[in-house]
């Protein structure tokens, strides 16, 4: 079964992110058909209004496109687009909170770099 | 699907089920008849043959069948999207068909019996075909009335209050009394008739009896329709 959803974040955004994740991870490749709304509803046990809301964000962003009567597909260049978007939010989403947390714990910048090298060396960063 | 088809569908499904139960009834009565017939000599035992023998049990069978089947059929049909109106007309058609079918089958059995054992002393109506038809008509009409009596009781017990349940029993008694007055029967029914009208030996002509019975059937059907028109279906 699926991972539980974070109750502090709108579900439709989390749906959108999960589909994006699958594209970034190559579980869904360009021109692949993505699961239908009904399949997603059945899988996530989330209302189809919510699922549709998440999907329409992806359609609006040009990540996926709809073929009438056939289904929805991953758009050409979707992965590239997502990677760029994610790089844009990487600083805000990860670096800033990390440095805030490090500040609370009194971890210096050089310590952070050392820790990063240590994690990389141990292989714990592998997905 | 047009609603005329619906009535035909209800009629044929009801009749099929009713006949399948009636077939068992006829088989059982036939066996009893043969057993009794072999134990007792013909002289002691029902000189008037199978048809007269099955007639009384057939009335009771129709009454009980109607009482026991009405509720579940009503629920079944409405649950499957059939209107009360279509249920009513379909059931009415089926019961007429089955009542005649029972007596026609009985007549066939009786004529086979008559063919095998041409009992000289038995008061057989097979002397004339007109008499046979009259007997089939009389018995069938009576059976229809008994079925209707059961239908009426079951309808009131299905969807109505204590007062109307009791009234339906009273109505049933009235129907039976009316029938015995119309057909001047012997035995139990006649003694009731005599209670009400001790001086009159009822000698009605067949035409009047049939006409009266048809009127009675129409009246009871009208009452049943009135009470099933908007009846609430039990969600059980």
């Amino acid at each position, binding site marked *: 079964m699926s991972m539980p959803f974070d*109750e*502090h*974040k*709108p*579900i439709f955004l989390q749906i959108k992110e999960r589909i994006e994740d699958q594209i970034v991870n190559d579980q869904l490749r360009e021109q692949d058909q993505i699961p*239908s*709304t*009904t399949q997603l*509803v*059945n899988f*996530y*046990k*989330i*209302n*189809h*209004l*919510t699922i549709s*809301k998440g999907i329409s964000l992806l359609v609006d962003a040009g990540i996926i496109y709809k073929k009438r009567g056939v289904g929805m597909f991953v758009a050409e260049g979707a992965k590239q687009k997502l990677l760029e978007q994610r790089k844009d939010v990487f600083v805000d989403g990860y670096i800033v909170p990390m440095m805030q947390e490090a500040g609370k714990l009194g971890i210096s910048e050089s310590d952070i770099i050392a820790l990063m090298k240590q994690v990389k060396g141990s292989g714990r960063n592998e997905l | *699907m047009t*609603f005329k088809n*619906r009535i035909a*569908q209800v009629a044929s*499904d009801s009749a099929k089920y009713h006949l399948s139960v009636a077939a068992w009834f006829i088989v059982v009565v036939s066996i009893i008849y043969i057993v009794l017939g072999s134990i007792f000599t013909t002289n002691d035992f029902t000189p008037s043959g199978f048809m007269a023998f099955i007639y009384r049990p057939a009335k009771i069978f129709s009454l009980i069948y109607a009482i026991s089947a009405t509720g*579940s059929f009503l629920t*079944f*049909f*409405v*649950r*499957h*999207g*059939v*209107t*009360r*109106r*279509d249920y009513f007309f379909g059931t009415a058609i089926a019961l007429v068909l089955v009542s005649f079918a029972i007596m026609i089958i009985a007549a066939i059995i009786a004529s086979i019996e008559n063919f095998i054992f041409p009992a000289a002393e038995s008061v057989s109506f097979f002397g004339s075909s007109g008499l046979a038809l009259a007997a089939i008509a009389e018995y069938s009409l009576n059976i229809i009335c008994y079925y209707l009596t059961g239908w009426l009781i079951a309808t009131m017990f299905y969807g109505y209050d204590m007062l109307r349940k009791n009234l339906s029993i009273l109505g049933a008694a009235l129907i039976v009394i009316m029938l015995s007055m119309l057909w001047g029967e012997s035995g139990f029914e006649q003694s009731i008739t005599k209670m009400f009208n001790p001086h009159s030996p009822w000698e009605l002509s067949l035409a009047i009896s049939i006409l009266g019975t048809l009127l009675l059937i129409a009246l009871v059907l009208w009452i049943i329709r009135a009470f099933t*028109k*908007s009846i*609430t*279906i039990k*969600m*059980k």
Partner: protein
Amino acid sequence: MSYETAFHQVNMTYGNFQALKDISFRLEEEKIYGLLGRNGAGKSTLLSLLAAYRKPSTGTVTIGGQEVFENSQLMSQVALSYNTDYSEESDKVKDMLDAAACYRPNFDSSYAEHLVKQFKLPRDKQVKKLSNGMKSALNVTIGLASRCPVTIFDEAYVGMDAPTREIFYRELLEDHARHPRTIILSTHLVSEMDYLFEEIIIIKRGRLLMQERSDQFLELGVSVTGATQVVEDFVRGMKRLSTRQLGGTTSVRIYGELSEMQHKEARKLGLELGNVSMQDLFIHLTEEEDTDDVQK
């Protein structure tokens, strides 16, 4: 033809008891509706009116503008599945399916066979000998395979175990996607069915409490989590659904939408805002307010 369904000022009275009071609402075609209410709220009565099992005391129940009661055309297009008493049903499973196939114009026998396999229904077994879960599965099979433009399931899951209910919900969604139709599911098990509903209708003590799209309904509730004192100050004057406390952290679910201002303020105060489940909202909205009655 249109299968838009409407209740218009419907009252239903049994003797002195008023089971439904002035109910009016409309159901658009081809949507899945959740009819929510506590036991005895009037869910079954309401649904039995739609299926023409009874006539409203006053008011009208219409489909496509025509009254349903005793309308031959419409009644054949409405299917109601409920927890049926089959204790005297000597027919076999296959007989019941055949009967439904005869009377339901859109009945799909091959889909019924598919459902029989999914639910592992024994075709040759007498219905009265089935377990309660199997009886419900049979009702659901007939209800779905009938493909009626108005399909009603009144607590049709009774007796089903969790995996069977799962099959029911999945098949319902999939068949609805293939053959869109109005489906009404009445339930008080909101938590496991909430994702099925496009719109919900809540009735309470025979009255219509609300009809809302489910996503909009969910926005009626917010959970506020943070340091106890900060949370308490923030939610003062708001309608509280429930409070949970762990150490110095408190999580309060409130009823009502927050303004943009309040959202900003919550962020400034370091409060986490979250979702509230349909179940929580439902429980709150249908609580029996005995104290209110005393005051009235």
